[in-house]
Every structure is written in structure tokens, then in C-alpha cells.
């Protein structure tokens, strides 16, 4: 087996100076959401990190995640990481197709058995494996076969992480998340619809740098990016505390950039890095653009009530059923009072 070069060696080969390396480490720390005090450790780790093999599987998905990733990968400094990554299989991006592509996948699996990383976007249909196949192989079979020799699995996007849109009620394909099928390997979820590009590359960078998955939350998401809510880091948070809310999308409050809570913002229960990392190379994020957060990085976000229903709205039927409850109460009350009266009549008779 060929010895893969370390990242340090790759950078050196590219003629990057030590100063450039330091800059690279600083920006890497920044995208990994690690404190600047971690920079020396990152430098140390990166110098000796070895280029990993990556296999990317796409199942029931819309390619939005790949789109998002590619938006990030080329122009930014972390593109360098991709120079350091051997993306051996990605049927959307790779030139090879058909048997050739599958052969590449098998070759990568064999060469890097036990060391490679599997990235998955899209959910896996279980109702009928025939709903989604690649090269005649059902998604579930391909996943099982591919992760067998993997070091870790990363579920990219809400579909792979939680079932996403295919898994939404009534879930006609019986779509499930990767984590439901892969139980014997470390699985990291990078949800979002799509996930923030820089978050995708950052978690890969983390794996590359430290050779392991970062710390995860209860939904398997890297804490560095999914550790705080949108609400907690939202620049509009002070308006929430002051009780200044946009009531409609075109009122003065909306124009003045007030809190979007009343318009259904799911920021308070959504764990993601949008508010700080932002999108499109740090340009903006939905709330900054005036739209409430949909909560796309949370499990089952499609089925959690209306996007424009305020978070504190009770999720229950009122009206008729409550009237029914009132009628039941009235009947019980009448029964109780009648029983009381009967008792009185009886006692009066008995004296």
C-alpha cells in the first residue's frame, strides 16, 4: 500500500511558507469553531495528518447538499483540505460512471479498509428497496456494503441525518436515516437543508486534522456547530428581550429588523451555526434576510407544525373538541348536583 503524504508535506510541496501555514491553521481553527488558543495544536496535528479516502453515497436526495458543498469547496481556503482528501467516489461529481465508478468504490474500500470515511446524503427507503437504486444496487445494500470497512460515517443533510423530506409524514417510501441502519460505526450527523457549506468542510477538516469525529450532541451533531441555538446567537435577540416583534412581513417592525418570533421563527429550538457562520461566504442568513428560521437542522422539522406558527402556539385542536369537553363537564356537573339533591331528599325523608 502506498504511503499517503501528510498535509504538511502536501502544503510544502505546494510551496506554502510557514507563515502561510500559520494563516491556514488560524482560518482552519476559525472554521472548526475552535478557539484561537487551539491554533498551535491544530498546526501540530495538521502537519502529521494523513490524506484520508472518502466515499460519498447519494440516496433519496435532491443534490442540494452537494450543491452546497461545492459552493464552499472551491473558492475557500479549506479547498486545500480537498486537495488533501481523496474523494474516491461521488457519483455526481466524478467523471467515471457505471461499472467504472463502482469499481472505483470497491478499489477505495479495499485499499483503505478500516480507514476510509463514508459520507451519505439522502435517506434510505425501506418500504421497497427498489424505490431508489444505483447501478442496480439498492440504497440499503450499498450502504451496508460500503460502511462495512469504514472508519466512520457522516450523514450529510437532514435526509441522511433524520429522514428529511422523504421521511416526512406520511413517508411513502419508508425512508429512514443513516443512523437507523448503521449502528456499529461512529455516525455523525451534519443536518440542515442543506447544511452550511463551511460546516460540512469543517467537520471533514476536523476528521482530517484529528483523525476522529468531533464531540457530538444527542442527535449526533458536532457540538462545535450545533451546540447553541440560532436564537442564542441571533443578532436580533435583543429585540426579543425588549419585546419588539415584526407582526407581519411588511410592517415597520419587519423593516426595522425586529425579532421574527411572532412570524414563526424556530430559532429558539434550532441548533445550528447560521447566525454566526452565515451563508454565501458570510454574507447573510435567513433571519438577516428577514425570514424566520424554519428549523431545518432539527429532526422532523417538516412535521412540526406550520413554519409561520409562532413557537409558543399550542399544537392542538380547539373549538369543537373543547366545546365537547365543556358539554361533558356540564353533564358530569349535572349528575353530581342531582346526586347531591337526591342525597338531600333522602336525608330529609330519613330526618
Amino acid at each position, binding site marked *: 500500500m502506498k504511503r499517503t503524504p501528510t498535509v504538511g508535506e502536501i502544503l510544502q510541496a505546494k510551496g*506554502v*511558507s*510557514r*507563515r*502561510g501555514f*500559520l*494563516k*491556514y491553521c*488560524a*482560518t482552519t*481553527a*476559525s*472554521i472548526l*469553531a475552535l*478557539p*484561537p*488558543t487551539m*491554533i498551535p495544536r491544530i498546526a501540530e496535528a495538521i502537519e502529521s495528518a494523513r490524506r484520508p479516502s472518502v466515499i460519498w453515497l447519494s440516496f433519496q436526495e435532491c443534490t442540494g447538499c452537494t450543491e452546497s458543498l461545492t459552493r464552499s469547496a472551491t*473558492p*475557500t*481556503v479549506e*479547498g*486545500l483540505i480537498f486537495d488533501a482528501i481523496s474523494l474516491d467516489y461521488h457519483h455526481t461529481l466524478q467523471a467515471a460512471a457505471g461499472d467504472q465508478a463502482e469499481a472505483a468504490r470497491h478499489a477505495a474500500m479495499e485499499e483503505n479498509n478500516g480507514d476510509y470515511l463514508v459520507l451519505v446524503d439522502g435517506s434510505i427507503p425501506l418500504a421497497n428497496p427498489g424505490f431508489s437504486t444505483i447501478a442496480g444496487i439498492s440504497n440499503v445494500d450499498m450502504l451496508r456494503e460500503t460502511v462495512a470497512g469504514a472508519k466512520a460515517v457522516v450523514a450529510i443533510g437532514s435526509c441522511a441525518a433524520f429522514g428529511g423530506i422523504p421521511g416526512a409524514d406520511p413517508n411513502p417510501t419508508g425512508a429512514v436515516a443513516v443512523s437507523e441502519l448503521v449502528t456499529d460505526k461512529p455516525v455523525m450527523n451534519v443536518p440542515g437543508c442543506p447544511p452550511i457549506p463551511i460546516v460540512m468542510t469543517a467537520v471533514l477538516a476536523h476528521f482530517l486534522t484529528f483523525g476522529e469525529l468531533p464531540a457530538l450532541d444527542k442527535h449526533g451533531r458536532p457540538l462545535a456547530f450545533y451546540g447553541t441555538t440560532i436564537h442564542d*446567537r*441571533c*443578532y*436580533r*435577540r*435583543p*429585540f426579543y428581550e425588549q419585546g419588539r416583534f415584526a407582526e407581519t412581513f411588511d410592517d*415597520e417592525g419587519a*423593516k*426595522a*429588523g425586529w425579532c421574527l418570533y411572532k412570524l414563526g421563527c424556530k430559532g429558539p429550538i434550532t441548533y445550528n451555526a447560521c*447566525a*454566526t*457562520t452565515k451563508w454565501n*461566504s*458570510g454574507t447573510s442568513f435567513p433571519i*438577516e434576510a428577514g425570514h424566520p428560521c424554519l428549523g431545518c437542522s432539527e429532526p422532523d422539522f417538516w412535521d412540526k407544525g406550520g413554519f409561520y406558527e409562532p413557537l409558543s402556539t399550542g399544537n392542538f385542536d380547539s373549538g369543537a373538541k373543547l366545546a365537547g369537553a365543556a358539554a361533558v363537564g356540564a353533564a358530569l356537573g349535572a349528575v353530581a348536583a342531582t346526586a347531591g339533591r337526591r342525597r338531600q331528599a333522602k336525608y330529609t325523608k330519613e330526618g
Partner: protein
Amino acid sequence: MTTTETATARDYPFHGNVRPLLAEILHAVDRLLDTGEPTTIDLASLPFGPGELAYLEETLGTGELSANLDALGSSRIRETAFPGVWWLEHRNVHDEIVGRFVEITRTPEILSSQDADITAGRARLGDQLD
């Protein structure tokens, strides 16, 4: 509609994220003076509302010294109007900003020549003499 026109980012009260940051910088300066310990603040990790970053940059202003670094894209290292407080902006080869830091230090580490580079430079210089 006039209200629409006036309701631009500039007119909003700032969202309150700049003041605490300035306070943090102040404390970092104190720390630098007291113990010599430098501080680096990654601006990417902080939530900024529209215009706030620009406001911060404006508030810190421009000092006596600024430097350009050309490695993996350009970088600008500038001392702000407050000595010891540095503004660092890293760009990639496509000239897009990939990192912004405020460093509170006497000299940002990245300005110093690195041993590895000195060694490599010495080798090249030696080659020229030969």
C-alpha cells in the same frame, strides 16, 4: 414610502453586539499590559447584525502600522487606532475573506519571520552565493 427609505441598516439602533466586544478588547489590553499575555478574538464566532462589523472596524480605526502578507492569498495586518489592538483579515487566493481576527498583542505572531522560513531562505541565499 419615506419610512421604507429611512429604515436602512444605518438607522437601526445597533443590535448591541459591539459594546461587549469593545469591553472584551479593553480587558485584553489590560491583560497584555499586566501579564504580557496576548489575546486573539475570532470575529467569525460572533453574531453581528447588519452594519455592526463595519461599525466595529470604524470604531477601532486605523493606527500607525499596517502590513500586507502574501501567502495563500493576501492578508492585511493593521494596527488599529489603539496601539496593541490589531485587525487581521485573511483572504484566499480568490481574494475572498476567509477569516477576521482582532489580536491584542505587541506584534502579531504572523508578522514575525518563522524559523522554518528563515532556514529555507538561508538555504536559498547560500545557493545564490555559491
